[in-house]
Structures are given as C-alpha cells and as structure tokens.
C-alpha cells in the first residue's frame, strides 16, 4: 500500500487558497519533504493528512484511511510532532511516554524510546526545564510510542541552534534506517537536502517542483554559469558585444553568464578583456538546490522562513 496519496487537494481560508489543488504520493520507506516559505501551505497540507483539518476539495488517503473521517483510527497508526511541540510543564519525558503508552493501551519500555531519540540524560527533567532541542526530541519520543510506520514531522528543527538541529537529524536518519516512512515540512533547504529522498517545493499553496534534489536542479537549474567580479558597465559591455544573456548582482559586484556551450565562456571572457575594464575572480558554478529554490519561490527568506522582500529577484540578480 502507498502510505500517502494526495490528489488535487484543496483548502481555503476565506478567499485565500492555502492549498491549491496539489497532488503527490509518498512511498513506503521514503523520507519526503515539503519545502517552502512560511505561508506556502505546508503545515495546512500536513495537518489535513494528519486528520487535524478538514479538506475543502480533492482526495487524500493516508494508510488507506480518509484522514478526516477516520482520524481516530488513523491516529493509532501514525506518529506526529506538531510544529513547536508542547507539553504539560511539570511532567518529565519518561512520565509522558508512560502516559502515552497508557492512552494507546500498549506496553513500552520508556528507556528504549528515550535512547532512540537520544534523550536518556533528560529522562527525569520537567518539560519546562528542557532546552528547545530536547523538547523536540520529547515530541519525537511521544510520536514513536505507538510504533507507527508513518511519521509526520512539522518543522522539526525550526528555532533550534545548529547542534540541536544536527542531533534531531541524527534521530530522523535513525528512523529512516529502520524503514519508517516520513513526511516532513521545513523551510530549511539543507534540512530537505540532508534528510529527504524526494522534495516537493511549495509556494502559494501550489507544488512548484517535485523530485529528488538532483532532478529538481536538473529540471529548474540554469546549468553551468561563468561568474566574474566587475562593474555594471562591464556587464553591459559584455551583453552588447556578445549574443550571451548576462545577469548582474550589484550587491556582490558579480557578473553572471549562463554557459550553454563551452565556447560561451571564452566569448564572455574575450569581451571582458576587450573592454579594458577591471575584472577578476573567474569562477564557474552550477545552481544548487538553494539557487533553484530561490528562483522558484522568487522571494528572499529570513532564517525563520519569512519572506523578506517581494520585489527583488530572490538571488539578488537583475537582468542588465
């Protein structure tokens, strides 16, 4: 059985199309990432699949269940950490695991689960005294109590320091190694790239690209580019004297030329040399997932996934 199947899924908040007819599947044993800025519709999508929100249109099957109508049954078989996991203040991770086990009416060894999420040392610390990373680990621990095959992680590392993020990644990799199917949302590119087999980039309620990182880069990346440091006049000069497309990043003072054939690089460099203007630092590079993401989402993001600037090109480039 395919764990998650989504067809033309829709959710509106008033006139806002939070999720706008998206379709995807998540295969068994796969880590699938929904990547996008805040407000892209990631959390709404994942909450519909968890059975926490009702969809307005389309179809969704999670482990064969309709997540909204059969939510109560579904919840026994999935594990979820919501965004910014929270718990009763004066309760320890160990007690919380026993509590969940009682609710699910199953026997578990709390120490095994604590070990799995690397939280043994804080087993007896009250929730409100745990660090951000430890709190998320406790959330992970609770999501594992019912030994689910399918896990939902909604922004598992948002707001955590780099070390805590890496620790959570280690836990998630461990779960993947055990063959769990995982769907996660994130606005961190590195997280999607590090953890997931496939990525769906979401923006404005739509999936704008989907596949493995390489597939996405292949499909949406500009390919190889030549970059040199120089002035805007030089960029204009190269454009005027060649057939090439030229971009200029005024912030970095970098001229960027997409290379379709190797000869394009020579043509650009010849034009630069011919101009008698100053230039330096020859470099060729390929688009990373980062570049593609920024291009597709076409907005700059802050650390928290907030959109910083709607107007400028996401990459700071402008056509000359």
């Amino acid at each position, binding site marked *: 059985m395919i764990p998650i199947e989504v067809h033309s899924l829709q959710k509106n908040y008033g006139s806002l199309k939070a999720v706008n007819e998206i379709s995807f599947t998540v295969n068994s044993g796969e880590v699938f990432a929904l990547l996008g800025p805040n407000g892209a519709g990631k959390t709404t999508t994942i909450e519909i699949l968890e059975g*926490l929100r009702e969809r307005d249109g389309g179809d969704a099957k999670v482990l064969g269940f309709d997540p909204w109508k059969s939510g109560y049954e579904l919840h*026994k078989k999935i594990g979820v950490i919501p965004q910014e996991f929270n718990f009763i203040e004066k309760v320890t991770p160990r007690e919380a695991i026993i509590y969940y086990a009682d609710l699910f009416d199953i026997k578990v060894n709390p120490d095994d689960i604590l070990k799995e999420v690397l939280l043994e040392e804080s087993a007896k610390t009250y929730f409100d005294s745990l660090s951000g990373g430890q709190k998320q680990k406790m959330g992970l621990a609770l999501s594992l109590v019912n030994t689910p095959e399918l896990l939902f992680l909604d922004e598992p590392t948002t707001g955590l320091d780099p070390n805590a993020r890496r620790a959570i990644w280690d836990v998630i990799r461990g779960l993947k190694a055990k063959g769990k199917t995982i769907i996660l949302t994130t606005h961190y590119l590195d997280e999607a790239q590090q953890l997931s087999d496939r990525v769906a980039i979401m923006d404005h309620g739509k999936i704008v690209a989907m596949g493995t990182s390489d597939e996405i880069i292949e499909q949406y990346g500009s390919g190889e580019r030549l970059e040199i440091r120089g002035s805007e006049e030089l960029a204009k000069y190269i454009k005027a004297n060649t057939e090439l497309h030229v971009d200029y990043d005024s912030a970095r003072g970098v001229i960027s030329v997409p290379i379709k054939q190797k000869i394009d690089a020579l043509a650009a460099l010849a034009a630069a040399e011919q101009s008698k203007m100053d230039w330096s630092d020859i470099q060729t590079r390929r688009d990373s997932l980062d570049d593609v993401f920024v291009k597709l989402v076409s907005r700059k993001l802050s650390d928290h996934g907030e959109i910083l600037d709607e107007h400028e090109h996401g990459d700071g480039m402008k056509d000359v």
Partner: protein
Amino acid sequence: MYSGRRTLADFKVFSRGYLRNRFGLFFGLIFPVILILIFGAIFSSSGSSIISVYAQNKDNGPVSIQFLDALNSSSTIRITMVNPTEDFSKYLASHSASDGIVIPENFSANYGAGQPVNVTVYGNPTSTTSGIVSGTVNGVINYFNLNYYKQNAIPIIGITPTTVNTHQTKYIDFLVPGLIGFAILVSPMFSLVNISSDYKKTKLFKQLSLTPLTKFEWLASKILWYIVLTVISFVLMVVVGIGVYGANITLTPWLIPFLLIGPTLFASLGMLVGTVTKNPETAGVIGNIVTFPMMFLSGTFFPISVMPQYLQTIAHVLPLFYIIEGLNNVMVYSNYVGAAIDLAVVAVITVVIFAAAVRLFKWRED
C-alpha cells in the same frame, strides 16, 4: 468509546503536574484556609457583641412597651419585634435563632391590677447567649418589680423559661460553608479557563487529539481532579472552622452531592469560557467577569441577607448562590428539603453547562 483507563492515565499525569506546581497548590488548598483564618479572626471576636433577641408583644397596654424599651436600652441585647400573630417557636426556628421573649396578653392590665404575670423567655441552654438574655430580662423584671411595688414582697412579674433547640448561628457557621463554596468555585473555574485557553494556544489539544484520548475523557479527568482537590480543601476548612473557631456545623452525607456537582459545574464553566474565547488574555478577562460577582454576591463571605434587596435578587441568578445556600441548608440549618431544591437547581445548571462545554470544545480544527 469512553475509557476509564484513559481518563485515569490523564488524571495521573495531570494531577502530578498540578502537585508539582506550588502556585496551583497554594491557590487550590491553602488560600481558602487562610481566608477562613482571616475572616474568622476578624468577625468571630467574642464578648462585646450585642445579642439579637426576637420579641413578640401580645399585650396592648403601655407597660409592655416600657418593658421592651428597658430591655432594648440594655447594653447586652437588641430587640427585634415579631408580629403577634406569628407562631413564635416556628419563627425562631426558621430564623435560626434561639433567643426570644414573649409578653403575654393583658400584661399591662395585670401589672396595673397587681396580678402576677409571667414573661416567657426562649433559650437554648447549651448556648452562651441564652444565659445573658435571661440575665438581662431578669434585671429588667427586678427593676419593674422594685420600682412600682416597693412595699410588696411578692414579685408581680416572673419568668417562664422555654427551651428551644435551635442554635444561635454565629458568623463562623456561615463562613465555613461560604468559603467551601468559594473553594468549589475558584480553583476549578480559574484553572480550567487558564488550561483550556492555554492548551488551545500552545496546540496541546491538537496534540492530544492525535492520541486515543477523547475530549470527554480529558474533561472527565480534570473534573475528577478538581473533585479530589475540593474534598481535601473541604476537610481542611472544616477542621480549621471547627478546631480554631468552634464552628457549629453539621456534617452529613448530604454534603457529598454538593462536593461532586460543584467542581463539575465550575470546571465545565471554566472550560466553556476558555473554549469560546479567542486567546488566553480574553479568556482571563471573561473568566474574571463571570467569577468575581459570584465570588462576592453568592454568600461566600457573609450571608446574603445582609445585602440590599437588589443584590439579593442578582444573587439568585448566580449558580454559586445555590451551592452555598445548599451547603448552609445542610451544615447550618439542617433543612434538607431546601438543600434538595438547591441541589436540583445546581444539577440542572451543571448538565446544561457541561453539555455546552463538551459540545463547543474542539479537539481538532476545521
């Protein structure tokens, strides 16, 4: 399907969290006891207080009026007149009073004619006030006898003592049930307003909805906990009320339904407030608007009979009023018919509020 096991699991984890929170514990258990100690100390100071005595005058001559004036001008008692047509014993019982005086018909005529005549003095021999009342009445009688019949060796006015079983209620007797009502209201109400709006904000409800726990089981576990807390608080207050201030209160199984239904009502009401409000701040404000009038107008700190009529009318629409009136009916007046009526009113309100809370309270969003 409802599961007692899940309710108990939730009860266990919640009560543990609660007991580790010193503020909650203080507010839930110690605070009402402190209130009893403070209010008891302020109002139960003994000795100097003037005893209120009911008097019925069946005579229509001038001497009885002089007689009552003389009593009233003593420093120990204050006379409250009772209509001559009332059944005096019943009147005392219904006013929880034990001290009373009845002046017989033809008192003035007999007095004028030199015929011996007796004033009836009602009192409960176990009450400290009864001795003071009969002492005062005796003093006035002696004065009348001496003044007008100095030469006559035989006293004309005498006393017919009559024993009544009603206890004179003291302030502390009202204060104990009143503050038990206070505890029944405050702790479940404030906690549930707070928890329900906070859990909503921090998405803890959403999280719990991902487990087999149902919202009904969750609320049941909270109610169970506040019943336990209320019972403990009840025991503490009764011990302090009786032990420290000698409160004269009756403890019967009739109190049990009040201790069960009361916390259910206010936990549900708190839940309802937290559910229908958008954020914890609004919930707090609405919670206070609902709670504070009840806290002061329902007979918590003083019997509502001392309040002006319009406030008494308002009190009758407050659910806590019926709980405290019921507790008074059981603990002070032993009036079980009244208590049963109060209980019925409270039960109906509770069912309505509980149903509304469970209905409107959302685990998931839509």
